[in-house]
């Protein structure tokens, strides 16, 4: 029944060591989002894909990249993680772009940077 799946659920990496987080969906939705949620803070949108079109938020650091090889999968790459990148990373999907369509969230990946 899982609709938005995130792997791994917990990821530990070292300072500066590249890391990739994975999101997959069984909903066949066109839009996939990545949010960052730091401890006791609000989830914050990093970027989203509408189909293959990539949309980066203006304040998303260059250290963060994303790939969407097909409809079902989307990856978040952090090229050189810093201690400040420790957070929960949430993936979400929606059928179409825009807020009138519900976003479905995965359970998140908690990233620890040592």
């Amino acid at each position, binding site marked *: 029944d899982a609709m938005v799946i995130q792997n791994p659920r917990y990821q530990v990496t070292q300072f500066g060591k590249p890391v990739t987080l994975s999101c997959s969906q069984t909903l066949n939705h066109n839009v996939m989002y990545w949010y960052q949620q730091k401890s*006791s803070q609000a989830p*914050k949108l990093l970027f*989203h894909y509408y189909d293959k079109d990539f949309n980066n938020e203006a304040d998303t650091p260059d250290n963060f990249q994303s790939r969407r090889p097909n409809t079902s999968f989307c990856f978040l790459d952090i090229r050189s993680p810093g201690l400040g990148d420790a957070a929960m990373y949430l993936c*979400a999907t929606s059928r179409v772009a*825009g*807020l*009138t369509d*519900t976003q479905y969230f995965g*359970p*998140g990946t908690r990233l620890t940077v040592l």
Partner: protein
Amino acid sequence: AQSVTQPDIHITVSEGASLELRCNYSYGATPYLFWYVQSPGQGLQLLLKYFSGDTLVQGIKGFEAEFKRSQSSFNLRKPSVHWSDAAEYFCAVGGSNFQKLVFGTGTRLLVSP
């Protein structure tokens, strides 16, 4: 800039008691308003949303919220809380000319026996 304030970081409610979680927003036009719930180990789940029309919105799990434009508020209510309602609740705002979600920092609900 768009923003959401959830003034209560933690709230404890006795099981069976009523609940109200506060949300205030800042948005220059007619807002789209949302409440999400995040249970431990789970993703965010949409409880309800408001775009236009009736200002009292019914959602899942017995929740409702009321949009009050004059107070820039969208408070979440439930008449009788169950232990399974213990979770973190997020209010979010967006709009027709700002098509992304801006979340508040959340309110953690604890339910006591």
